[in-house]
């Protein structure tokens, strides 16, 4: 089953690789596969770790001098709108004063590479290819404008820091390991409080500071069984769900008063 699935992914990847060719420099192809395409959240779920495997396929067009590759993997979870607020002291108490809205930013974001981004590409390319948490596009709404800001902006850095503290944003510049010069692997750690939804994995191959080729794959995190039943009924049948919960509350209270009845 999983072998068949990974074959499908390979086929898709090959197609993407072929159709995505722009310019003559792309002589390599990336073939990747995630260890689990569908992470199921069960009652005892408490985080998981996926493995991404891949290889660099050279062909005749590959310059013979090109031997060393750099790889950057970006995993982004389902987009969400978030608000970052800053507290300030006013009238002796700390209250939320200023805030920034972050629009459709990844709820989970992980950036992995085989060596520091500075060693992989120039600052300009890092910015253009969104390498590293400092260069990833995080759209903010500042008044009427929609824009990303400089990496050291107070709200942006606080946002990245708070997400990182919860394990939802991460950056590791030694996480990708090349097993052979063309075969690589990296781990994708998923924290316990992982957002549910579709995750996009973008793999970019660099050589001599330039982007050689890129490909993408995805996996999804889904609730199954009881978890899914509860979540969907809460969303779709709010009234019935509320009635059921209220009834459950009354039953629990009633049962307790019977169980603990002494007189």
């Amino acid at each position, binding site marked *: 089953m999983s072998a068949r699935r990974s074959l499908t992914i390979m086929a898709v990847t090959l197609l993407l690789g072929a159709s995505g060719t722009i310019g003559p420099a792309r002589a390599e192809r990336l073939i990747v596969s995630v260890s689990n395409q569908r992470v199921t959240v069960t009652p005892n779920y408490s985080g998981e770790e996926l493995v991404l495997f891949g290889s660099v396929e050279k062909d005749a067009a590959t310059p013979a001098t090109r031997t060393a590759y750099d790889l950057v993997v970006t995993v982004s979870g389902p987009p969400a709108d978030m608000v970052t607020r800053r507290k300030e002291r006013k009238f002796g108490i700390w209250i939320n004063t200023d805030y920034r809205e972050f629009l459709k930013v990844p709820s989970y974001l992980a950036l992995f590479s085989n060596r520091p981004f500075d060693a992989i590409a120039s600052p300009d390319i890092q910015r253009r290819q969104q390498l590293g948490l400092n260069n990833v596009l995080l759209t903010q709404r500042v008044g009427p404008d929609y824009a990303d800001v400089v990496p050291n902006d107070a709200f942006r850095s606080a946002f990245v820091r708070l997400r990182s503290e919860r394990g939802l944003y991460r950056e590791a510049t030694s996480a990708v390991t090349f097993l052979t010069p063309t075969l690589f692997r990296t781990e994708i750690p998923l924290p316990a409080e992982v957002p549910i939804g579709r995750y996009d994995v973008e793999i970019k191959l660099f050589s001599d500071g330039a982007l050689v080729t890129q490909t993408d794959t995805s996996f999804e995190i889904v609730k199954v069984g009881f978890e899914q039943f509860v*979540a969907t009924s809460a969303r779709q049948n709010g009234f019935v769900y509320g009635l059921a919960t209220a009834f459950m509350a009354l039953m629990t209270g009633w049962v307790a008063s019977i169980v603990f009845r002494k007189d």
Partner: protein
Amino acid sequence: MQLFLPIADIPVNVFLILAMGAAVGFVSGMFGIGGGFLMTPLLIFIGITPAVAVASVASHIAASSFSGAIFYWRRRAIDPLLALVLLSGGVIGTALGVWTFTQLRALGQLDLMIALSYVVLLTAVGGLMFWEGLRAILRARRGIASSMRRPGSHGWIHGLPLKIRFKRSKIYLSVIPVVVVGVIIGFIGAVMGIGGGFILVPIMIYLLRVPTATVIGTSMVLTLVTMVFATMLHAVTNHLVDAVLALILMVGGVTGAQFGARAGQKIRGEHLRLLLGLLILAVGIRFAIELGIKPDDLFTIRDTGGGG
């Protein structure tokens, strides 16, 4: 034992939640309060989002107060007529409160308003109860028979028209102040996301002069109805009631509430008031300190949904 919560979307330790439910249930059974003002901050502390915490706590309080209400009903410690009159006011108050809630939200300072009203209400109510309980104990120590004396019991409140005889409570009182109290409690409950029992109990004792015997049971009936109502509202509007979390809290809560109710009947009235006053005061001061000292992190993130 870890369990993944379907709505809160985080794994929690079942025994921790059970223990929290039992502890708060004990307090709520003992004092006849819902305990929402204790439970909600606890849940937020272990990482559950405030919205889910408030919504799920409502059903937990409903279960606790139902089991408590049965306990008091058997002991004939509930005044059905008084509860009914309070409820008629409570419904109006809840509707007004929900409307105000929406207005405050539009202004963008809802969090601050909630925190400030917690501080003001809890420290004021807690302080008053603590002080009153302390005085009562001191009077009892000095051997002054104060239980029969009810200062101001024939004030303006008792001069109001539309008087009804509340048989179970053995009081003869105008319905106007009772309905007004119901409105206030319903309003505060809807705005602050709490049952309001900790405010209702002292108001009934000090303002309406309801005998302590029927106060707790009757206030539990009001809490029960408003919290069932709140559960329904949260489930229909926000879809944020986590039934699994609520069930764990309930099981712990009802167990605790049974023991709490028993313990409450053994403790003397003034001691009970002193303890409850102290507890409420402590929570109020905690909120005040939080507002007053510089937070560890000046920034907070809140998920506003949307996205894909």
